[in-house]
């Protein structure tokens, strides 16, 4: 028995009066929606991913896109997606793979948190005219200052360990070369160098064209150890051990062989065209003390000159895990919330496993504070940070800095169509096809990403100034300056914030 076809996801139409047949849509669509027959543009809507490349390139605004043009019988439980997933799996018997982050309509806690501003009892500070300090140091800090006094002269005994110096508490998270294109990664690298911050390399090694920006990179070592050698470790300004990822906690990764082109193969140090498989766990970390070993091993290898971060997915017991990490020599804990993006993840994981970053930050910050060690280790938050409001709220909940991923890709053209895993990204981001990759001019891309970082930094300064704060330390963990709006008591308690009006 045939299941037949499901209705179109998207319906593309062209306003033929407007269309001047410039063929830009035909040229730009890498999914094959458009073709020319007898001087006419024919549309195959079934291939459309709503990536908007054609729409953005159409000089006449002649293209229209409608999502879900065909209705199912409405049903609150058996949504369109639920039905189509069943049909898909009945047909294939396989795990459903999906791109980008969690797509379930969970409440967004950020949108139920509101920030504070000064009125009367303290003055707002104008960040453009008076000092506003966003400089953030990521790394281990002493618990107390040790010094000796010699005839009024004070000599510091405390030795600071290396910290990363960020001009703004905002970095770009790990997206590997392989998952994204070289031009995309190069754009990000140039952008962070311009804005005084850092980017993650992902677990794909470092391509030589990133070398000029290596002082602004954090090199990642994940369970696959792709591209990892001592040169790689020494190149990064810091090293990050990736244990887990918010989009797919508890499972490994998989770069399909078709994305492993010659350059990726050599950067990752794996054969051309072979799958790059990252196991779920690091097979040298089966317990917390093993993690401490790996941290120390990386520190030894790099002469204790590099901060080492440990990235975990935000799972139920995130606070206790983070406290364990903090006790190792690790300099920072990266927590990745369940709304974090990814090139590809099993849909059932993406949509059902892990916890939101807002609650995770609060829980980790609280646990470390209860143990009196909060300031000794940095917290980096990621997973669904969309704007400077989310950034400010993350810091007020207790993060030292955030990683952005998806937002930085949107700045390069990404429209969050969620088809990254297909390797056909028409924006030249999640692809290794040279004709698509060339669509990104790294100079232009870098400027766009730098603009975004600059704009958020400005907005963060304004938010802090309005709250009467002139240094980022005073926003960090300052939950007095947050209120919950329509959050339940359980969440208010976890985040230790008051309700609006309280």
């Amino acid at each position: 028995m045939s299941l037949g076809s499901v209705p179109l996801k998207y319906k593309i139409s062209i306003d033929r009066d407007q269309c001047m047949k410039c063929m830009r849509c035909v040229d730009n669509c890498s999914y094959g929606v458009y073709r020319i027959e007898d001087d006419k543009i024919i549309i195959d809507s079934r291939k459309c991913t709503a990536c908007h490349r054609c729409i953005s390139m159409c000089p006449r605004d002649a293209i229209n896109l409608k999502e879900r043009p065909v209705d199912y019988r409405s049903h609150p439980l058996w949504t369109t997606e639920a039905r189509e997933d069943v049909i898909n799996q009945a047909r294939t018997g396989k795990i459903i793979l999906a791109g980008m982050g969690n797509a379930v309509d969970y409440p967004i806690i950020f949108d139920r948190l509101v920030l504070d501003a000064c009125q009367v009892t303290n003055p707002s500070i104008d960040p453009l005219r008076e000092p506003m300090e966003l400089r953030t140091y990521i790394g281990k800090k002493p618990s107390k200052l040790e010094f000796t006094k010699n005839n009024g002269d004070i000599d510091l005994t405390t030795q600071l360990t290396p910290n990363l110096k960020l001009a703004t508490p905002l970095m770009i998270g790990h997206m590997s070369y392989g998952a994204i294109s070289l031009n995309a990664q190069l754009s990000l690298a140039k952008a962070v160098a311009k804005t005084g911050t850092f980017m993650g390399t992902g677990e794909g090694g470092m391509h030589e064209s990133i070398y000029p920006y290596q002082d602004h990179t954090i090199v990642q070592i994940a369970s696959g150890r792709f591209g990892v050698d001592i040169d790689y470790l020494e190149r990064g300004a810091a090293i990050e051990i990736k244990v887990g990822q918010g989009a797919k906690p508890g499972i490994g990764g998989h770069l399909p062989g078709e994305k492993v082109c010659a350059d990726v193969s050599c950067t990752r140090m794996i054969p051309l065209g072979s799958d790059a498989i990252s196991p779920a766990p690091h097979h040298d970390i089966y317990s917390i003390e093993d993690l401490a070993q790996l941290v120390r091993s990386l520190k030894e290898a790099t002469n204790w000159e590099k901060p080492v971060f440990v990235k975990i997915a935000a799972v139920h017991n995130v606070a206790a895990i983070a406290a364990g990490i903090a006790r190792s020599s690790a300099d920072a804990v990266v927590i990745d919330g369940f709304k974090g993006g990814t090139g590809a993840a099993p849909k059932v994981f993406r949509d059902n496993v892990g916890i939101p970053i807002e609650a995770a930050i609060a829980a980790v910050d609280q646990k470390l504070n209860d143990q009196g060690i909060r300031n000794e280790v940095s917290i980096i938050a990621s997973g669904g940070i969309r704007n400077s409001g989310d950034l400010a709220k993350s810091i007020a909940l207790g993060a030292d800095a955030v990683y952005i991923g998806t937002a930085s890709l949107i700045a390069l053209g990404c429209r969050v169509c969620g088809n990254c895993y297909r390797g056909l990204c028409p924006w030249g981001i999640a692809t290794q096809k040279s004709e698509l990759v060339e669509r990104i001019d790294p100079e232009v891309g870098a400027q766009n990403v730098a603009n975004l970082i600059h704009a958020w930094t400005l907005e963060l300064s304004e938010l802090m100034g309005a709250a009467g704060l002139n240094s980022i330390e005073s926003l960090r963990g300052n939950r007095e300056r947050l209120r919950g709006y329509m959050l339940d008591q359980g969440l208010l308690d976890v985040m230790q914030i008051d309700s609006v009006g309280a």
Partner: protein
Amino acid sequence: MAEPLVIDTKGMHYTPLNRQIREAVASGVKEIVLNNVLGQRFIGNGLRGDAKITVNGVPGGDLGMFMSGPECEVFGDAEHAPGNTMDNGVLIIHGSAGDAVAHSMRGGKVFVEGNIGYRGGIHMKQYECKRPILVVGGTTHAFLGEYMAGGLILVLGIGHEPAVQDRGIGSGIHGGEIVIRGDVDVKLLGVGAKKVDFTEEDLENVTPVIEEFCERFDIDPKPFLNTNYSKIVPSSARPFAGKYTWE
């Protein structure tokens, strides 16, 4: 000339004091002497006319606020924001003053013999014939002339080398000028402020101001007419341009 009205203000609240001053001015008194002033705020607040008020002691904050015309001479220090939103007239302070001196001043002159605190001349502004002037004999703390939108701030720095050492000079300045004796390290300039050459013409313009200041405090003006100054002006009249984008 009529005898001045002398008021012993010891222990007096500012409201009856100001009422007495206002009534006296209304009845034609041209000269008022306040003795034993200590902490009374708002002296000369909103006062119109051309009376001369002598303050012996340390007046409280907001001396001469909204004042429009009179001359007020203080033999002592002044506290927070003398000349606040002052419209016209003269304040002469034989001493030092607190923060936000001449805040939002619209016209007239404020002469301080000693030092002033933070944010002196903040948001001074000019319009048509109204051009406020703040002259400081000593030095000033940070954020001098912040948001300045018009008028003149002159700092002589007597006894201070360099005349000003604190940061944020003219931060956000978008009108008016700040003139400081000697050189000013550009790293002390605030956002949107720039240092330009102090020309012969500039000297001509400030000469009467220097002369008047020196005459008020019985100081020889010559050393100040024959020395170098730094002039700090806005780099743009539109400091916010380029900050925003439309939704």
